[in-house]
């Protein structure tokens, strides 16, 4: 169980402090697939990076009751659109590195996924296309042997590969205790894949609903999000009206 209580993070810049996170509370159980949504700057990345201990924060992050430390950090893995692999190394070298540092590396899954996405094992990562790099980044996060797999917009960038297949493969290989937290803008795409949607807005969690609940209410994820955000559908019409009234 991953518990986040009262998470606050303030970045200090030229214009004073920016509250990237303002009291986020979230509890994530094992086996969940959670979509993390929110506009840019809502705090999604800050939330994930705080959980992983990349930066200081106020509040608590507990994994099965313990703070995140060297003993349990291996139970968290991370995939980011900025990519966290070594560009000069090959996938094989990465496997060695992961095996050396994380005793839980999933060899068979690694081979199966590399095979499925037809990624060459012996080419250095910097020679990969952007799409392939994104895939490899996600593969590493999935094969570390972590229980909580955090992904920060892993499919951003110029992607061509079929993400639908990817979600299906994931659903097939994930084990009951593996949890995914996926931060993404691709709402419609992940709607069926995720079981729970968490919405962030201006550093706060403003929505937390299971997709089953949404289905029962007959609402799509997009509708739910727009509603929470106070999106007014008549905005466009009004703007057009204002723009065309003058005859220009």
């Amino acid at each position, binding site marked *: 169980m991953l518990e986040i209580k009262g998470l606050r993070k303030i970045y200090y810049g030229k214009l004073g402090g920016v509250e990237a996170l303002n009291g986020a509370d979230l509890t994530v159980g094992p086996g969940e697939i959670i979509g993390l949504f929110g506009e840019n700057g809502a705090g999604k990345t800050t939330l994930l990076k705080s959980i*992983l201990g990349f930066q200081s924060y106020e509040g608590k992050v507990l994994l099965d009751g313990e703070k995140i430390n060297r003993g349990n950090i291996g139970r968290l893995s991370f995939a980011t659109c900025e990519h966290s692999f*070594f560009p000069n190394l090959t996938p094989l070298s990465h496997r060695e590195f992961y095996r050396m540092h994380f005793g839980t590396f999933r060899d068979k899954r690694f081979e199966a996924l590399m095979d499925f996405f037809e990624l060459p094992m012996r080419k250095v990562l910097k020679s990969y296309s952007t799409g392939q790099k994104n895939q490899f980044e996600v593969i590493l996060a999935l094969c570390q042997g972590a229980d909580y797999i955090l992904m920060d917009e892993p499919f951003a960038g110029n992607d061509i590969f079929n993400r639908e297949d990817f979600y299906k493969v994931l659903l097939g290989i994930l084990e009951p205790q593996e949890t995914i937290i996926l931060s993404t803008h691709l709402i419609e795409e992940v709607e069926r894949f995720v079981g729970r949607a968490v919405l962030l807005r201006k550093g706060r969690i403003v929505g937390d609903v299971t997709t089953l609940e949404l289905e029962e209410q007959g609402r799509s994820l997009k509708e739910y999000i727009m509603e929470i955000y106070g999106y007014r559908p008549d905005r466009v019409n009004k703007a057009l009206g204002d723009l065309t009234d003058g005859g220009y």
Partner: protein
Amino acid sequence: MRDADRRKLYSRGRFIKKARAAGKLTDLWNPEKLFPPGYEYEWERNSVVLLFGIGVGLSLQFFGRLYQAAEVLYEYTDRRRVLREDAIAASFGHLVTGHWGLYVPLVLFLTAMMIYHYSYYYRVTRSIYLMRRLPRRGVVFKSCVLGPLTGLGMAAVVLALLYLLYYGIYVLVIPGECLP
């Protein structure tokens, strides 16, 4: 399982064990372990050798000074070289003052490299995000520092031997009674 097969398996197992042990030893000599993963250390190593070489090259002035220090001990009478009375040669330390300065660029370079290695984790990709998630302690620190430290250590050893050699030559060249 037939005995022949059993023996084959057993000997293969021992071979694998030996290969693994040998591999571990070569790790110590493997420069890759001293630098961040995938870091191209060749140019750095070559620069170190170059800086070191320049330093050593400049240190050869010692021989010039030694020659002068030795010459000063003699005077020429009747076209013969004779040791002057009460002639004391310059001390060895005197002959090599300022040599520390020859190696300062090397030390500065290696210190700067330690910082440069850290920035490697932010270049092209953010591999720092992987490094900071590792259960083992000090991996980042070691990867930044071990390479340059090894370089400094080796330079120190070679220089120690070199100046020992210089001292040996000094003692050989300067007649015993003139040694300070």
